C-alpha cells in the first residue's frame, strides 16, 4: 500500500519546497489552475490529470514550487475540488497535510447566475455568502439570489 502510493506520486516529478494539491477531481484540474491564477505564476508548476486513484477512480494533482498558500487562498478551490488535499512540502518532505474547506464567503471568482443581477451589468466584484457548504449554495450579496449546483460558473 505504502509502496503503491509512493510509486503514483512519482509519476509527477517531486518538488523540493512548495505546495501539492492532491485528490482534485480529474475534470476540474484546469479550473483549479485558473482559480489560483497559476497561469501567471513564475516558478515551476507541474500538473497531471486522469491519474489512477483508489479513492476517486481518476484524480488530478498540481505541484507548485516555492509557493505556500494561505487558507483563504486555497479554500476557494473547494468550490470545484471539495475532495482536494493540500500538502506542504519542505525539503522534499511532507511538512503539513490538510483537506480544503468550503469558505464562509466567496469573492470575485464566481459569477452570479442571475442575468438581471447588477454584478452582470456594472463593474462590481461578485460576493457571496455560502449558505450551504454541503450542497454548495451561494447567496449573492447584491441580488440575494442563490447560485447553486450546476449554475455555479467561474469568472
Amino acid at each position, binding site marked *: 500500500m505504502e509502496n503503491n502510493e509512493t510509486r503514483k506520486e512519482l509519476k509527477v516529478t517531486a518538488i523540493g519546497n512548495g505546495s501539492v494539491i492532491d485528490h482534485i477531481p480529474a475534470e476540474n484540474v484546469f479550473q483549479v489552475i485558473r482559480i489560483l491564477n497559476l497561469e501567471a505564476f513564475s516558478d515551476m508548476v507541474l500538473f497531471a490529470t486522469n491519474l489512477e486513484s483508489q479513492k476517486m477512480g481518476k484524480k488530478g494533482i498540481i505541484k507548485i514550487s516555492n509557493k505556500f498558500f494561505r487558507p483563504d487562498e486555497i479554500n476557494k478551490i473547494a468550490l470545484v475540488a471539495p475532495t482536494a488535499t493540500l500538502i506542504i512540502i519542505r525539503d522534499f518532505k511532507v511538512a503539513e497535510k490538510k483537506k480544503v474547506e468550503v469558505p464562509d464567503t466567496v469573492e470575485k471568482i464566481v459569477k452570479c447566475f442571475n442575468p438581471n443581477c*447588477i454584478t452582470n451589468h456594472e463593474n462590481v466584484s461578485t460576493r457571496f455568502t455560502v449558505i450551504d457548504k454541503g450542497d454548495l449554495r451561494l447567496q449573492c450579496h447584491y441580488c*440575494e439570489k442563490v447560485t447553486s449546483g450546476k449554475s455555479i460558473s467561474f469568472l
Partner: protein
Amino acid sequence: MKNKSLVSINDFTREEQIRILDLAEEFEKKPTQKILQDFVVATLFFEPSTRTRLSFESAASRLGAKVIGFSEPGSTSVQKGESLRDTIRTVSNYSDIIVMRHPKEGSARFASEVADVPIINAGDGANQHPTQTLLDMFSIRKTQGTLDNLNVAFVGDLKYGRTVHSLVMALTNYNTTFHLVSPESLKLPSIVKMHIKEKNLTYYQYTDILEVIPEVDILYMTRIQKERFSDPIEYEQVKNSYTLRNPMLENAKPNMRILHPLPRVNEITIDVDENPMAYYFTQALNGVYVRQALLATILGVK
C-alpha cells in the same frame, strides 16, 4: 438608525421596524411638519414607478425637504452610458439622502456601498422593495391592532411577487400563520418557505381561494401577470379562479381586511371596493406616513 441605508427589509431589526411604524403613526396624526427644511432628497427612478415616486415626493414635501431627481432615465446622463457608480457618486454630492428605483437586482446594495449618503431602496428589479413591506406591516397593525399571532393569506403570484417574499420574511418575526394560495406553477419559492420553517411557524398551501377566506385576518391579493406563463391557455384557466368578488366575502371574519400592493388589474372586482373590508387604497396612503418616518429617522431628525 441615523445615516443607515435601507436596502433589504432585513437591514432593520424587528425593534427598528417597530420604531418606524410607531413614528409613522405620529405622522398620520400630523402629516405636515416642516422638519426637513435643511435637507435635499434625491429621487432617482431608473425605471418609472409613478405611485412609489409620488408617495416619496409627497412624504418629503410634507416635511419641507427639497426634492431633486428624475422619473425615468431617458433624459439623463444614464442615457449617455454613465455607470450607476458614477451617477450615484455625483448625486450623493448634491443630496442628503437618495431614494432609488432601478431595474437591476442588487443595484441598491451596490449604490449603498458607493454613495456617501444613505440610500433608500424603492425597488431593485425583482429583489426588494422594503418600504412597501413596511407600509404593509403598518396597514396590518393598523387594521388588526397588532402584528402578533395573525393568520395571513397571500393570494396569486407567490413565485415572482417580491412584495410577497419580503412581507412573508418580515412577518416571520411575529408568529404569523401563513396561508398560501396560488396556482401550482406560481407557488412560494422554497427559499422563502425555508425562512418560515426556520422560525418554526406553520404554513398551509391551497389552490382554492374560497378555502382560506373564513380562516384569515388579512387577505393579501397580488396580480397574476400573463407573461409569467409559458402556456397562454394555462393563464386563461388560472386568472379567473384568483379573482376576488364581493359575494365571496360572505363567510369572512368581521375583522378581515383585504390588502393589495396596487396597481390592480382584474384580480379584485370593483364591487369589492365598497366593502368595508377593502383596505388597499388606505394602504397606499399609509405609504406616505411610513416614508415620512423613514426620511426623518435616517436623516436623524426624529
